[in-house]
């Protein structure tokens, strides 16, 4: 243990503790900007500097370890001057047109500038004039980038995608795409983690809310909107609502009041995914010779992009099942259009999703199986939907819950947990058990695959044979898992991968909370909803039963293949051969 004094208070902390943490342990708040615990402890912004008695220079509190006997002061003139000056320097190169920024009100720099009582900048303003592609799902606003380097770190360390890099040196050093000249040429998987780790508005999603409004305004269009499982854990955060208050039904009320014609639940197509993917898995198992193992889940388009870009040898291991979003779109423009008796081209199919890869996925040219038009027309992230609700001056706290529309508004608890790491695997195992044995297991039988660990393994007995499964989230963990499979160190039958750490609840399109990984708080919401749901098995969803009876006949039928499955080779990543 090390004894130090911070602002006159005695502190005793373990060796190696940073000044920042030692101060926090006695309630002393040191401002930070570039810092993100465990991810970006590089002392780049120099906002967290403190004074150490006996030293002329000011160390960064975020990455300087306390030393025995240190006398630290966090609020002297030297410290205040240096911090303020550094924030002013950053502001001199930051586009502070806050009124036209998606992060206004949720911006670490804005908060710091306010906290420091900065009312004018003594330096000449200089903004980077380079513009990113406004049509790509992920947009880099160079004029707002403060070079905190968090995006580089999360992309390298957590996602193993290495898209961002520090380019150039000296005054022109900037954050940009590293190995390519643009994002669209790069192997970016569009997970959006760089956005949720950006302290300012330098990284954002392409805003498609205007397209949704256009569809609402078009009297010819019937708007059908689906809500992904993980959205119900997070959408209310922007309104200060707890998950208990911000239910999927209250979100439906908001969407209804904005004017969407049909509000449906992606949980339904998650159940459909289980039927198809589960059956596919059992089919592959029955013909082990002619199939590649493990089979990988395919519901996360960020993961699919990652495999195609970095591990093409595993593309055939992916399930051919479309993601729930795309299954939903295909059903909407076929079965549902038929049901309500409209020309599918009149339907505008919209989804609310926790990530940006979904924006890419819906635009893949072959995702048009229902009627030739894209099965899903518009993807809005949780953040965009929150902005849409605000821009329509809808106050969710004043609305009553409404039921989702029929028939595609019914989902099971198994579909609900798709939004968390391990959820797809658990849902699949629940139904696989039924499909193999003809009876339901206890719904919590497979809970070993729950939890936030980046790489989980489990074995289950299924009709006399042992099933080895693994679950990984975060593409860094996925890469490790793939490398281990390649090296012959591990082998599994079925593997679930989600690109974002913790799964979609930690998705890159979700509301942003600086320095906080939210999946920890959001995942339990999904599991508690699953627990409270009377319907806990995908195969028991009555609408699923009906749609097979009326439309698909059975899983993996010809119609299923046409509408619910896809060829992962039908499109290419930029560098894919």
């Amino acid at each position: 243990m090390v004894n130090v004094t911070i602002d006159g208070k005695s502190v005793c902390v373990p060796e190696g503790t940073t000044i920042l943490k030692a101060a926090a342990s006695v309630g002393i708040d040191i401002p930070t900007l570039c810092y993100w615990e465990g991810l970006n402890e590089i002392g780049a912004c120099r906002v967290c500097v403190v004074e150490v008695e006996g030293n002329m220079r000011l160390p960064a509190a975020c990455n300087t370890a306390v030393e025995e006997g240190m006398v630290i002061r966090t609020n002297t003139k030297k410290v205040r001057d240096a911090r303020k000056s550094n924030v002013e320097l950053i502001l001199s190169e930051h586009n502070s047109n806050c009124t036209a920024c998606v992060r206004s009100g949720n911006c670490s720099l804005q908060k710091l500038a306010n906290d420091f009582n900065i009312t004018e900048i003594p330096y000449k303003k200089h903004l980077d004039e380079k513009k990113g592609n406004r049509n790509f799902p992920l947009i880099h606003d160079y004029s707002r980038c403060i070079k905190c380097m968090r995006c580089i770190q999360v992309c390298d360390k957590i996602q193993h995608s290495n898209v961002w890099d520090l380019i150039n040196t000296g005054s022109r050093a900037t954050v940009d795409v590293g190995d390519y000249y643009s994002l669209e040429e790069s192997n970016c998987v569009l997970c959006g983690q760089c956005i949720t780790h950006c302290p300012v508005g330098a990284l954002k999603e392409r805003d498609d809310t205007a397209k949704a409004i256009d569809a609402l305004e078009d009297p010819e269009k019937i708007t059908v909107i689906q809500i992904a499982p993980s959205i119900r854990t997070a959408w209310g955060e922007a309104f200060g609502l707890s998950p208990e208050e911000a239910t999927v039904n209250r979100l439906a009320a908001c969407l209804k009041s904005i004017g969407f014609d049909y509000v449906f639940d992606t949980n339904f197509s998650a159940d459909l995914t289980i039927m198809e993917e589960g059956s596919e898995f059992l089919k592959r198992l029955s013909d082990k010779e002619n199939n590649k193992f493990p089979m990988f889940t395919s519901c996360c388009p960020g993961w699919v992009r990652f495999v195609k870009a970095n591990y093409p040898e595993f593309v055939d291991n992916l399930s051919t099942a479309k993601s729930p979003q795309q299954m939903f779109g295909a059903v909407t423009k076929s079965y549902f259009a038929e049901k309500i008796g409209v020309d599918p081209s009149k339907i505008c199919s919209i989804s609310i999703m926790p990530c940006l890869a979904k924006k890419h996925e819906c635009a893949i040219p072959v995702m048009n199986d229902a009627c030739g038009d894209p099965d899903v027309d518009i993807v809005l992230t949780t953040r965009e939907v929150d902005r849409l609700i605000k821009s329509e001056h809808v106050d969710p706290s004043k609305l009553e819950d409404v039921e989702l529309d029929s028939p595609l508004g019914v989902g099971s608890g198994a579909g609900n947990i798709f939004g968390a790491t391990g959820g797809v695997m658990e849902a699949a195992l629940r139904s696989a058990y039924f499909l193999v044995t003809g009876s339901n297991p206890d719904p919590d039988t497979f809970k070993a695959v729950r939890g936030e660990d980046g790489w989980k393994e489990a074995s289950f007995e299924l009709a006399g044979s042992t099933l080895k499964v693994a679950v990984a989230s975060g593409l860094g963990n996925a890469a490790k898992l793939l490398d281990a499979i390649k090296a012959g160190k591990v082998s599994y039958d079925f593997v679930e991968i989600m690109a974002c750490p913790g799964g979609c609840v930690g998705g890159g399109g979700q509301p942003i909370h600086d320095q906080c990984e939210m999946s920890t708080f959001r995942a339990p919401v999904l599991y508690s909803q699953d627990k409270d749901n009377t319907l806990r098995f995908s195969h028991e969803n009555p609408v699923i039963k009906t749609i097979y009876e009326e439309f698909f006949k059975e899983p993996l039928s010809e119609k299923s293949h046409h509408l619910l499955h896809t060829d992962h080779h039908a499109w290419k990543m930029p560098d894919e051969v």
Partner: protein
Amino acid sequence: MSRLSNVTTTLAQETVEELYNDIERNIQTSQPGLCPVDLAAAFLHLSHARSCGKCTPCRVGLGKLEQLINSVLDGTADESTLEAIETTAESIYRSADCAIGSEAARMAVKAVKGFHDDFEEHIRHGRCKLQNFKSVPCVAECPAHVDIPGYIALIHEGRYNDAVNLIRKDNPLPSTCGMICEHPCEEHCRRKLVDDAINIRGLKRYAVEHESEIKAPVCAEPTGKKVGIIGGGPSGLTAAYFLSKMGHECTVYEQRDKLGGMLRYGIPSYRLPREVLDREIEGMKLAGFKTITNFSIGKDMSFDELRKQYDAVYISIGAHIDNKIGIEGEDAEGVISAVEMLRGIGDGNMPDFSGQDIVVVGGGNVAMDVARSAVRLGAKTVKIAYRRRKADMTALAEEVEGAVADGCVIMELNAPVKIEKKEDGSVAAIWLKPQIVGEVKWGRPAPVNADSPEVRVACDKVLVAIGQGIDSAQFGEAGLPLKRNRLAASEAGDFAEMEGVFSGGDCVTGPATVIKAIAGGKVAAANIDEYLGFNHPIESGIDLPPVRFADREPMGRVNMTERPASERIKDFDLMELPMTDQEACQESARCLQCDHFGCGLLKGGREFRW
């Protein structure tokens, strides 16, 4: 008014002088990977500030040139800008009145030609082509990329075993390098910004001398693969050490009596004591590789046969052939090549130069080694004849100074023209043609004959140290590519022409430093491992102490001291004195820890494994 006055300096002038010194050190520490276009603009700015303002090209032109280059950096330029830069720079160079303008413009011309691609990359893509910013200068400059800030931090904590083992992760010859490494790591040491480079080599030697014992390294599971290594010098031993750690079965074939290559047969023991070298090699052998000495590939076994017996082969035969001066009388008895003399000494055959007059020909480190050895072998006089200036010698400055202190006389600007024989065929004298320094060619002023007569220097022995060659003919015949007798291996140490054969060290680079040879062995080990179908990581597993925060107040560098010349010339014992505990503690605290402070923390900092 006084008619004349004495020059006094103002505070402003003194400060500017100090700043000039700071800038000089600043530029010396510039690490590779910086944007050359940006630097060119900055140099122009500095040159422009020095313009007196009298003449148009300099007063106006340098500023415009800088603006043009800045437009390239700002992304507002097009291809025509490059032309404008070139034309303007050339016009300034040709028409400026004094060197301030013309030399600044010459730098600009050089820049546009030298990094044309970078200019174009900026114009087309708004970025710099060079993306290999080196965040830790010492690690980047060390050919073997040893974790220098890491081991210095461990030395400061008194964890000497850990420090040496951390070095061994990248360089299995820490004792040798502690004594004789040319320490390129110190070249761009960022501490020079504050005062002077860290004495990295000295600290390494200190750590090694405080290591308790050399433990056998932990090796991976045996792979069943066999690697044959030709040459037991630093490069071959390094490859054998790492490949053994990776679980491969290695055999080193050495044609001489003992292992060590040039470390034993080229470096005198007063710089690298034999007991240190022997202990180092014995320590390396704990990794488990086999060594067969007095066995020459090409004589005792053919190269083809060796290839058949092994899954992979590493050729590290060094550069052990002497070069001839090519002058009349070189065949005289008493003309000895440096290679031959040092080889004899390596095997313990000390020639007796008692009372003799010796002339050494050459200006490299080997010339200094033989000259200083000759002093120790009892020579009456030792003269070093060199055709260029002393300042142009390729030997390290400290080696030249050491030779002078040992009593050698440097005869600079003297080119040997012939060796005069006595009737019995032995050396009578060497004739030297005085030279005058001339034009700069390839960065060094070339000597030309002076208008003065040849000089006769009577002597008993002429020691020739003008470089070494490579005995590579048999490998050329076997089908490997040669380039001026060097094995033309790729950067990865392999050959497109022959699978499974790798090469490195002096036989690829030409005579170079021990650390380059070690790096060659390290690179080969990694690539041989991969070639054999494995990916064994080499890591140290050593945790570093928390980083110390400190002001960077200027503090002198601890330099190594030597035994007095009068004493050391009497024997072949180690010349250099060790660093004291007090010195090592102070010197290790000077390290700026660039792996933590600065860009190193973001990327390019510590490499835990390779």
